[in-house]
C-alpha cells in the first residue's frame, strides 16, 4: 500500500514537473515570438511542412468522416422518419467537432511526430548546442516558427476538412440514398450558425498551438540517443492526442456557455 502511494506520488510529481516545464517553454516561445528579429523564412517553410503536406491526409479523413456520418445518420434516423436531417447532422458535426478534432489528430500524428523526431535528433547529435555556440537562440530559431505555423495552419486545414466532410455527406445522401440535392443543402446550411464554424476554428487554433508546444517540448528535451528520440516521438503523439481530446471537451463546454 505504501509502495502504491509512493509510486502514485512520484508519478504525480513527474507529471506536474513536465506540465510546468511545458508552460515555461510556452512562455519563452511567446517572448521570443514577440521580440525581433522575426523568423519569417523559417515560418514559411514550416507552413509548407505542417500545412501543405498535411492536406491529402486531412482531405481523405474528412471526406470519409462526412460519408460515414451521412451513412449512419440516414439509416439510424430513418427509424423515426427523420432522415431528412442528414445534412444538418453532417454540417453541425463536421464544423463543431469532427473537423477541428480530426484535423488536430491527423496533424499531431504526422507533423507533430516529425517535430519531436527532428528536434530530438538535433538534441542528441548536439545540433541544438551548436546553434547556441553560433549565438542563435534555439527556441526562437526552431520552436517559434513551428508554433506560429501550427497555430495558423490548423484552422486553415479545418476549413478544408469542414467543406470536404459536408461534400462527403452529400455524396452518400444524394447519390447513394437518392435524397434531393436541394434538400441536403437546405438542411446543411439553414441550421448552421456562423458561431459553429468560428467556434470550431478557434478550437483548432488552440489545438495547433498545443500540438506544437507539446511536440517541440518532447523533442527539445530528449535524452539518451536514438532510443530517446523514439520515446520522445511516441510521447509527443500520445500527449498531443490526450491534450486535444481532453481540452476539446472543456473548450466546447466553455464555447457553448
Amino acid at each position: 500500500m505504501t509502495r502504491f502511494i509512493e509510486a502514485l506520488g512520484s508519478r504525480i510529481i513527474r507529471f506536474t514537473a513536465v506540465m510546468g516545464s511545458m508552460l515555461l517553454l510556452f512562455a519563452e516561445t511567446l517572448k521570443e515570438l514577440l521580440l525581433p528579429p522575426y523568423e519569417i523564412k523559417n515560418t514559411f517553410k514550416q507552413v509548407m511542412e505542417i500545412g501543405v503536406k498535411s492536406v491529402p491526409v486531412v482531405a481523405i479523413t474528412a471526406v470519409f468522416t462526412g460519408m460515414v456520418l451521412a451513412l449512419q445518420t440516414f439509416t439510424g434516423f430513418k427509424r423515426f422518419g427523420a432522415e431528412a436531417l442528414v445534412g444538418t447532422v453532417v454540417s453541425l458535426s463536421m464544423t463543431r467537432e469532427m473537423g477541428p478534432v480530426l484535423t488536430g489528430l491527423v496533424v499531431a500524428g504526422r507533423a507533430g511526430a516529425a517535430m519531436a523526431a527532428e528536434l530530438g535528433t538535433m538534441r542528441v547529435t548536439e545540433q541544438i548546442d551548436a546553434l547556441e555556440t553560433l549565438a542563435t537562440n534555439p527556441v526562437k530559431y526552431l520552436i517559434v516558427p513551428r508554433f506560429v505555423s501550427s497555430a495558423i495552419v490548423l484552422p486553415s486545414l479545418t476549413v478544408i476538412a469542414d467543406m470536404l466532410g459536408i461534400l462527403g455527406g452529400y455524396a452518400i445522401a444524394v447519390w447513394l440514398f437518392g435524397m434531393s440535392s436541394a434538400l441536403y443543402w437546405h438542411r446543411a446550411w439553414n441550421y448552421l450558425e456562423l458561431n459553429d464554424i468560428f467556434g470550431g476554428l478557434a478550437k483548432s487554433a488552440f489545438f495547433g498551438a498545443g500540438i506544437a508546444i507539446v511536440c517541440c517540448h518532447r523533442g527539445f528535451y530528449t535524452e539518451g540517443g536514438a532510443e530517446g528520440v523514439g520515446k520522445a516521438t511516441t510521447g509527443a503523439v500520445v500527449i498531443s492526442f490526450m491534450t486535444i481530446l481532453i481540452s476539446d471537451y472543456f473548450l466546447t463546454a466553455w464555447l457553448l456557455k
Partner: protein
Amino acid sequence: MIEIRDLHKSFGSHQVLRGVDLLVEDGQSMVVIGGSGSGKSVLMKHIIGLLKPDKGSVLVDGTDITRLDAKHLYEVRKKFGMLFQGAALFDSMAVWENVSFALLRSGMRASEARQVAIEKLRLVGLTGIEDLMPSELSGGMRKRVGLARAIAHQPQILLYDEPTTGIDPIMGDVINDLIIKMREDLLVTSVAITHDMHSAYKIADRIAFLYEGRIVETGTPEGIRNTTNPLTKQFITGSSQGPIKIEGINA
C-alpha cells in the same frame, strides 16, 4: 584568457565536476585529458555557457560567464568557435550554409556568405563540396566542415571536443595538423579535450588531467610524459593496473 575556479556540477546524485580549477592563457593550446565519462564534455560545455555550474565560476577575459543573462552570453559566445565530437552539422542545410550559418544569421548576403564559406572550407583542405548535404560526407570530412563552421565568424577561442575520436588514425592526424595550423595562422587560444594521448602530445603546449571531477595534474607535454603522479602515469601509459578506479572492476 579563460580562468575556471572551483567548478562543481552534479546531475541528480551524480557528481561529475567536484572543484575544477584551470587557467588557459591567451594563445595557449590547452588539452584536457581524462577517461570516457570523466566529465570532459561537461567541463567544455561550462566554458561556453551551455551548462550552468552548481558552484564556481568561469571567467572569459575577466567576465564571469556563469552569471550573464542570455543576451550578454550570446555576445560572449561570438568569441568562441566549437567543434563538436560528432561535428553536429545541421543536416537540413547544405555544407556552405552550415559553414556560414553565423554570418547568414547576422545578416550577410547569401552570395557573400557563400564565398566566405568556400574560403574557410579551403582553409581546412576541402574544395568543391560546398553544395553537398552533410549526409553525403565521410566522418573526417564532417569534422573538417565542423571546423570550418567554427572558424567562420573569426573567433578568438576554439574549443575541440574529442577532435580525433571516431575517425581513422590518418584522418586523425590531418585534424591534429589543422588544429596546429589554426593556432599558428589565426592566433587563437585553443582548448581541446581528448583521451587520445598521441593527439594530446602533438597539439598541446599544456596538458591537464581530469580525474574524479578535479584536475589532478597540469604540465607541459614533456612534463606529463615524465610525470611521477601515479594516476597520470597510469592514464598516459594506458594500463589497467594502478590506482585509477575502473567502473565495474573491483580492485
